[in-house]
């Protein structure tokens, strides 16, 4: 019987230092797939390696041997004794392995539930395996189902819905205020990774003109060029406020660089059009009193972190729905997987019966030379009908009882009774 076996480690079972050592590069993956195809007890294999996990998915006729082979292979290639990583490994077989694959692809096993990269990474791993021909009937179907389940989980639940990074959270709030971010003008004061990332997100959302103000004008020019915007001097910020809709502030200034009075006087000139201040700096750049002005909104880094925490809670709630979808899919796949055994058995049985019938009819017809063509056909039809009728009940029984519980007993018995495994049928 063919077993599905999964062996691996992830961010939950192994610290990053260990994961670093065991990660497989692209070349190492292709080499591994080549090497593994030389082992007779391993029929199919896929290897997934990302910064958060390394997993080997195999189908094998000898479960324990396969696990041992995999461990030893990792140990040799990575030059680490098995004992040093053995404890970090998790091993799943059969239904557990199927469930694990579904969960991982649906990002239910990721560090941040709902992250979108893992699906692409698994698709790449599968592509490599198909190119190296190490994926066969079972893993092909498993992976196709996996992608389908991942898509279902993503579209039917809200696990990927809300922002879990500071920059995305800021954009999300912006959308709650402005609806569409298209053509909204942006002012970046200062610089910094998160702030610049936020500006990039805004640009991707087709925001309008970008203004950059920096204590060092040259740095401002640099950033402005990158965002295809305009650099302005810090003194011009007040004037700029009259035009822009979103202000992202991330300077090293020890105090507030924008005060409530500054903004209050500008609101009138702006005709009270709403303005959103994103204050990523610590210590804060934007006077929080500004939030109390009508149509002005200030979110500092703690506020954004709270937004993210709430979103993560939401995602975890949605993950429960995702698990239900995975459970459904596991049951369906299992039915197929277990049905796999029944079909070849029935096919082999029929093939054997037909072969016997064929031999006998040939022998008989040879000694009955006086028969007409019609008689021959009638005799052949008779043997065919006999084979069909004889096989009808066993076939129905196997198909019906082939999907529940210990079906392997029935299949085993059938194969033994009719001696199907001695000859190469089906």
């Amino acid at each position: 019987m063919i077993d599905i076996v999964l062996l691996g480690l992830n961010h939950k079972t192994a610290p990053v230092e260990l994961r670093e050592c065991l990660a497989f590069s692209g070349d190492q993956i292709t080499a591994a797939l080549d090497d593994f195809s030389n082992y007779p007890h391993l029929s199919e294999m896929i290897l997934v390696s990302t910064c958060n996990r390394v997993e080997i998915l195999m189908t094998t006729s000898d479960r324990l041997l396969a696990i041992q082979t995999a461990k030893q292979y990792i140990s040799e290639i990575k030059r680490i004794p098995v004992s040093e990583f053995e404890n970090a490994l998790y091993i799943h077989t059969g239904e557990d392995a199927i469930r694990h694959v579904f969960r991982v692809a649906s990002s239910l096993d990721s560090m941040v539930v709902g992250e979108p990269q893992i699906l692409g990474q698994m698709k790449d791993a599968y592509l490599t395996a198909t190119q190296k021909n190490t994926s066969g009937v079972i893993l092909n179907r498993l992976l196709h189902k996996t992608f389908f389940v991942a898509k279902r989980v993503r579209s039917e639940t809200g696990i990927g819905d809300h922002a879990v990074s500071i920059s995305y959270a800021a954009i999300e709030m912006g959308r709650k205020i402005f609806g569409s971010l298209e053509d909204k003008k942006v002012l970046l004061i200062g610089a910094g990774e998160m702030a610049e990332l936020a500006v990039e997100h805004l640009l991707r959302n087709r925001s309008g003109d970008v203004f950059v103000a920096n204590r060092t004008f040259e740095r401002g020019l640099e950033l402005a060029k990158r965002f295809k915007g305009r650099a302005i001097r810090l003194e011009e910020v007040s004037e700029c406020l009259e035009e822009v809709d979103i202000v992202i502030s991330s300077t090293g200034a020890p105090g507030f660089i924008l005060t409530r009075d500054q903004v209050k006087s500008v609101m009138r000139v702006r005709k009270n059009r709403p303005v959103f201040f994103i204050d990523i700096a610590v210590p804060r750049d934007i006077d929080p009193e500004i939030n109390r002005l009508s149509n002005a909104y200030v979110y500092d880094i703690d506020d954004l972190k709270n937004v993210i925490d709430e979103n993560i809670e939401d995602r975890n709630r949605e993950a429960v729905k995702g698990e239900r979808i995975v459970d459904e899919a596991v049951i369906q796949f299992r039915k197929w997987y277990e049905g796999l055994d029944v079909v070849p058995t029935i096919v082999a049985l029929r093939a054997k019966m037909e072969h016997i019938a064929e031999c006998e009819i040939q022998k008989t017809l040879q000694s009955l030379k006086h028969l007409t063509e019609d008689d021959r056909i009638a005799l052949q039809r008779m043997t065919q009908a006999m084979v069909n009728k004889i096989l009808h009940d066993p076939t129905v029984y196997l198909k019906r009882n082939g999907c529940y519980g210990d079906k392997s007993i029935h299949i085993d018995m059938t194969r033994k009774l009719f001696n199907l495994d001695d000859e190469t049928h089906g």
Partner: protein
Amino acid sequence: MEKVTIGITFLYLLSSAGYLSYLFLQKSALQQISGYILVSAFLCHTAVIGYNFFLAGHIPVRDLHEALSMVAWTLSGAYILSLYRFNLKVLGAFAVPLAALVMVVSALLPRASIEAQTSFRSIWLVFHILAVFVGEAAFALACGIGILYLLQESAIKTKKRSFFYKRLPSLELLDASGYTCIVAGFTLLTIGLATGFVYAKLVWGRFLSWDPKEIWSAITWLIYAALIHERLTVGWRGRKAAILAIIGFCVVIFTFLGVNLFLKGHHGVFTRW
């Protein structure tokens, strides 16, 4: 006809229940079904009003029962229109229960129709009634949107995720659609008042009688005119506009009902019960 009206009221109530459940559960199917129920209720209602119009020979607002039925009709019609324009599904939880409530009250009121007078058969009266009622329905929607705006703004300002936060669209969308409703309402109210004056001249010989209804209608008109003017010049938008939309609608309710119930005047006949 009784039974049909009860059926229509029931449909409105059903649609309200649907929209309210949508507000809580957020399942898209709920709001879709509620929409279909609402449209069917509206069509039946249109048929009933049309039939009454035909029977009476003039627009059917002879007593409070009929007037309220007209209110519910214009309100649901206005909301259906707004669904096409803004697709504010959450607003249904405000507009449709309101329409249903009005229908229920209308059904409970006794008929006290006044005698049909030939003066009722004027086309000016039809325009006056329709323009004013639809305009006021638009103001009702603007009020609902204003309430939603304030709820959402509070969630964003205080940074506490309220029940409504997920369920409401952006502030900008609420503000813009609220303003559109106010402009629409104001235009219709202006037409309504103008046709009212023309009708008054035809029937009573003068444009203005300094009737409480006329005075309060003028006050209502001024409030919304001020809102629009200040928005265009100074920028009264967002919070201020939302609050004014709510206040304005309260004045509208008083102008429509309160004046008739508590003060005297020639509109009193239409809200007898």
